[in-house]
Structures are given as structure tokens and as C-alpha cells.
């Protein structure tokens, strides 16, 4: 009898739990944000990204087509399974209309499969892997902020042309690191350089000593850091401590403003890096940065601004076509020029890549830096075509050859 009542209670609980599950609301626009909120990449976008989405929604007016705009956010903990299953759950249960993908290419690739199965627009921002608009492309993917190809064409070519001919890579051991290394290697070889070796370090490594000793033993001139977030700052700090930076020139294949801030100019000065956006480019970017700073107490990174811009572009597209229908919205996004605080000359290529101006930057010395967060000087402005090529990626199955 008692046991029976226990299970009756269990049943009641289950029922309660069922009713607490929000059913898909058709009268809402639901924007999802799936990002690393607590680990290696949390500073690059993280909570600042959620704030950027909310800023965009406020700027847009809080509602679109008379529908409320809801934001969902989750920490994917850098696990592709969590990212993909949350995305699927939101699409099935919460009436998700668009998802923004934060850092981690591995997670984004997993999510892109869900995007094509569930037909939900999927805007990849934090992930760098160029395969998102190559072999892994889908009709619903937009790769918004930057990709590994642009990083290679920016940073690697600047360094090779300065005389850094022999390279050794310390690479994050997952899709992003390997794709970044490939892109940089292509550029190095094309410019007459050589790659002497590479080593793969797991994501979230804290002790880089053995990897860096291998790099030093290679005798290469350039230490290519094909990693990001705290992996990048930890490996660069360790290279400094071991004095490796005296004999090898470090190359930051992907560095964000927050990384430079954490490293301080003393450590990071002189680094070349490639970015799609910097807060101190012009009046418009400074004005946005000021608003962002007031909320988050940090200057926005490229990716946080891309979050803002992508949300706004999406809402504009929804308004223009008068519906949240994925195919119509995607068609609208792909034919609209992007001209806002993030990019003034952006457009979305047939394979889903958002092509826009990229900047090769050099980190200032402490003496050059005049005010807080004054970290970069522009070395070179690359047009979108120069950064990413003028043709869609032929490995993308959607592109007819």
C-alpha cells in the first residue's frame, strides 16, 4: 500500500513537471544563445553576449511584428553533446526561431547538424572553423564574425612577410585548432615559409611546459599559437616565463581584446593579430563601446559586437519579410547588405559566410597606449575578399560547381 502511494506521488510529480514545461509559443520570437559561460572562452562572449543581445532587442524596440522577443541562454561547457541537445530541445519545445552560437567550433559543428534537421537559422559567431561554411555548411548556417581562413590570411601572412619563415605550431586539439593551423600553414607555405612541426594540446590545458619545450627544440623562428581564450593567454604567459619569446616570435593566430587585457600590454606588446572589429575604430564603434561598457564594465570584443549586430540583422529580416519562417528569413538575410556598427560593407555569401572588412592589428607597447583599453594599432585593412577569397567555398555541398 505504502509503496503504491509512493508511486502515486511520483506520478503526480511527473505530471506537475510536465505542466511546468512551457509549450512552444507561436506568438513569440525566441532567440537562443548557446555559449561557454564558465570556462576557457567565457570572457570572449559569455554573459557579455547575452547583454549584447538584449541591447539589440532594446534598440529594435523590444518586439517585432507585435510579438514578444524572448532570449534563452545556456552554458554548453564546451561539450558538443550539450550544445546540440539544448539546441534540439529548444527547437522542439520552446519555439526557437533563431540561435546564436558562441565559442567552440566543435560545438558549433554539432549544432549545425541540428540546424539543418530542425530548419532553424543558426548564426555562428564565436566559432572560427572555416568548415562551418565549407564541408559542414547548411542552408541555415551563417558564419558571422570571422573564420580561420581570414585569420591565416591576416596574421600569418603579415608575419611571414616580415621575415618569420619557419614556424612551429602549438594547436588546440579540436576542430578549431586544426583548421586554424591548416589555414595558417597554407599561407606560410604560399609565401615561401616552412612549417617545422606542430604539437596538439588539449582544450583547457594549464601547463604548457612540455609543448613549449618541443617548440623551442624545433629551432623555428615563429611560435604559432593556434588556440584561443585562456588557452592562448596561458600558453603565451608560459612562453614568456620560459624565455622562449626571446628566441621565437609568438604569433597570436586568434586573440581577443579580453585576452590582451588579461595578459597586459607588458606581456602582449608587439603581437600581430587579426580581428573583424575593434572598439576604437571610429565614432560609431566608440559610441557602441561606451554603451556596452556602461552595462558590462568592459570594452566589447569583436564577438560580442557581432552578437549585437547579428541579433539586429535577424530582427530586421523578420520585420522585412513579415514572418519568422526560416527559409524566408534566410533568403532576406542573404540578400541584405550589412551596414551597422559591426561591419559597413558586409554581405552573406552563398555558402553562409558573412564577408566583411578585417583588420590586421599590432598590440601597442605600454608607452604607446594613451588611455584604458587603448591596445591596438591598425597595420593593415583587408577587404572581405582579400581575407576570405571572392568565391564561395567549393567544399560546401550546397555550392553547385
Amino acid at each position: 500500500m505504502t509503496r503504491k502511494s509512493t508511486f502515486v506521488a511520483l506520478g503526480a510529480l511527473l505530471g506537475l513537471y510536465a505542466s511546468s514545461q512551457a509549450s512552444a509559443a507561436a506568438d513569440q520570437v525566441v532567440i537562443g544563445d548557446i555559449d561557454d559561460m564558465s570556462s576557457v572562452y567565457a570572457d570572449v562572449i559569455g554573459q557579455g553576449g547575452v547583454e549584447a543581445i538584449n541591447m539589440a532587442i532594446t534598440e529594435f524596440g523590444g518586439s517585432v511584428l507585435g510579438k514578444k522577443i524572448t532570449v534563452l541562454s545556456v552554458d554548453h561547457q564546451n561539450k558538443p553533446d550539450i550544445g546540440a541537445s539544448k539546441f534540439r530541445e529548444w527547437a522542439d519545445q520552446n519555439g526557437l526561431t533563431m540561435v546564436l552560437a558562441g565559442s567552440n567550433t566543435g560545438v558549433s559543428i554539432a549544432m549545425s547538424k541540428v540546424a539543418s534537421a530542425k530548419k532553424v537559422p543558426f548564426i555562428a559567431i564565436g566559432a572560427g572553423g572555416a568548415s562551418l561554411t565549407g564541408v559542414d555548411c547548411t542552408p541555415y548556417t551563417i558564419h558571422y564574425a570571422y573564420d580561420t581562413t581570414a585569420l591565416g590570411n591576416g596574421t600569418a601572412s603579415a608575419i611571414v612577410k616580415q621575415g618569420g619563415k619557419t614556424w612551429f605550431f602549438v594547436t588546440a586539439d579540436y576542430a578549431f585548432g586544426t583548421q586554424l593551423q591548416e589555414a595558417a600553414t597554407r599561407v606560410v607555405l604560399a609565401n615561401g615559409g616552412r612549417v617545422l612541426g606542430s604539437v596538439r594540446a588539449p582544450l583547457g590545458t594549464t601547463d604548457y611546459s612540455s609543448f613549449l619545450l618541443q617548440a623551442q627544440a624545433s629551432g623555428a623562428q615563429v611560435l604559432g599559437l593556434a588556440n584561443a581564450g585562456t588557452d592562448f593567454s596561458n600558453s603565451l604567459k608560459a612562453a614568456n616565463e620560459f624565455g622562449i619569446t626571446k628566441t621565437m616570435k609568438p604569433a597570436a593566430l586568434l586573440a581577443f581584446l579580453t585576452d590582451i587585457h588579461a595578459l597586459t600590454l607588458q606581456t602582449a606588446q608587439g603581437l600581430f593579430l587579426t580581428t573583424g572589429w575593434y572598439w576604437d575604430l571610429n565614432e560609431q564603434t566608440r559610441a557602441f563601446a561606451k554603451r556596452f561598457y556602461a552595462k558590462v564594465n568592459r570594452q566589447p570584443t569583436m564577438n560580442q559586437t557581432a552578437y549585437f549586430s547579428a541579433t539586429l540583422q535577424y530582427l530586421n529580416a523578420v520585420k522585412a519579410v513579415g514572418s519568422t519562417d526560416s527559409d524566408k528569413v534566410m533568403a532576406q538575410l542573404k540578400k541584405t547588405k550589412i551596414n551597422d556598427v559591426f561591419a559597413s560593407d558586409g554581405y552573406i555569401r552563398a555558402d553562409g559566410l558573412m564577408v566583411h572588412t578585417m583588420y590586421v592589428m599590432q598590440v601597442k607597447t605600454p608607452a604607446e597606449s594613451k588611455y584604458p583599453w587603448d591596445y591596438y594599432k591598425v597595420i593593415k585593412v583587408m577587404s572581405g575578399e582579400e581575407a576570405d577569397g571572392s568565391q564561395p567555398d567549393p567544399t560546401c555541398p550546397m555550392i553547385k560547381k
Partner: protein
Amino acid sequence: MRAQIAVYVVLMALALIAPLLGLYPVFLMKLLCFAMFACAFNLLLGFTKMLSFGHAAYFGASAYITGWLVTVQGWGTLAGIVGGVAVSMLLGLVIGAIAVRRQGIYFAMITLALAQVVYFICLQAQFTGGENGLQGIPRGSLFGLIGLGEDRIMYYFVLACFIAVFVFIRRIVHSPFGQVLKAIRANEPRAISLGYKVDRYKLIAFVLSASLAGLAGSLKALVLGFATLSDVSQGNSGEVILMTLLGGSGTFLGPAIGAIVVVTLQEYLSGLVGSWVSVIIGAIFVVCVLVFRRGFVGEIERWFAHRN
């Protein structure tokens, strides 16, 4: 006995109507897969008293193999599942043959070490996709007739598999073979002195448990559409131990209830506290070990038995 049947009927009815109540079918299927995994594990821990620290190896290997067969080789769904289970069975046979020669902590350490070997193979091998895992695994269809893409249909398929496994485990435990396993659990030297080839019985139990864990892994890969390193990692091996002990090892329903509790907690807490989930679940485990050692179902059964 009557009460027991009543409980099963109620649970069965709940399971049948669960997706109609608006519960998310993918989540329910995940619960069933982990419940099946825990039941398979319980066959070893609960009924034979062998503590394996590396059961994720069979769960994960089977998930990868099924995923690879279905995605890359273009096999059908059932063939993919059979392939995955066959591999985990083989893996169980090899690892089991080495491990059953030792008892207690040494047994646990051997299973742990060999499971880590499997983990690193999955990390380094080409076909598993390394850190990225295997993505976009299609669910396919049953006999080319019933498409499993629809969540509710897949749910009833997974439920049928779970019930089959559950009944199968009950049957094993109540068979003469199961009696020998229980004898080994109670007193191994005595079972040896009675003339039983204990190692052989233990190996069979190990292989059965590994195969059923593999079936759970295959189904999970098909349900969620991916197989990743989390499936095969040490964390997963630890979780299944936790589920089994929390629910009550050596009971039939215990591991399933434990799996439901743990997976539900993970699902809902991860949105609130991120990676702190592991700490919270660890704390729950400590409380469980200190306060109710028989697990939820174990304590209820004991209390019930005392009253009669």
C-alpha cells in the same frame, strides 16, 4: 508479489502515456537509455558484486560503432545497433577475461585502466572525430517500414527495448545461472568449493552486462544523433555507479530510478549552475552513502519487508 505487480503496472502505464503528457520525448528517451545502462551495470554490481569502474567503455564504444556504421557505412538502424552491441560484447569478453581473475579493488582498477585505453583510442582514432565526436547520426527506420525520425515513434521503440532488457535481466537473475551468481556474491570461496567454475560465471555476467550497456549506448547515439567523448569518458563510468547506488544496487527498479534522478538533476541544474552540477551530485552521493546505503528503492523495500 501483488504489490510488486501493481507497481510495475503503474510504472508501465506512466511510461506509455509520458510523451502524451507533454514531456519532451527526447529527454524521456535519454532517461530510458541511462536507465538501461544502469540496469545493465546493476547486473554486475548488484547481483554478482563486481564493481566495474569502466562501464562507459562499452556504452561509448557501442555508441561510436553504431554511429559510424549508420552514418559512414550506410547500414540500417537495426544492423547498426547489432554491430555496436557485438563490438561491446567483444570488448566485454576481452576486458572481462582479464579482469575476472582478480577480486575487489584490483578488479575495479583493471576495468578502469582498460576503459581508459578505450577512451584514448576513441580520442585518437580517425573515425570517432576526436574531440568533436561523431555528428549527424540518422535514426533511419525499422525494417524499412517505420520511420524513427518522429520523436514519439522513436520513444516507443526505445521503451520497448528498455522493457525487453528489464525483463531479460529479471529472467537472468531468477534463472539457475542467476542463483549461482548470487551464490558467488554471498560467498565466493564456498561457490568454488561446491564445484562451480566461478570465473566462467563471472565472465558470462560481465559480457552480458557489457553487451546491454552497449545496447543502451547504441540507442543513445541514435536518439540524440551524436556520439561524443562524454559517452566513453571516466565521468560516465562514475555516473552509472552513482545511479545504481543511489537507486539501490541489487534491486530491479533501483538503478532505473537512480538514473532518472541523476539525469533529471543534471538536465535542470546545468541551466542554473553550469558545471557546478558535478559538485552538487557528488554531495548527494556522499549523503546517500552516509544516510541510506541501500539506495532509494533498497530502503523502501527494506522498510516494507520489516513491516510485514
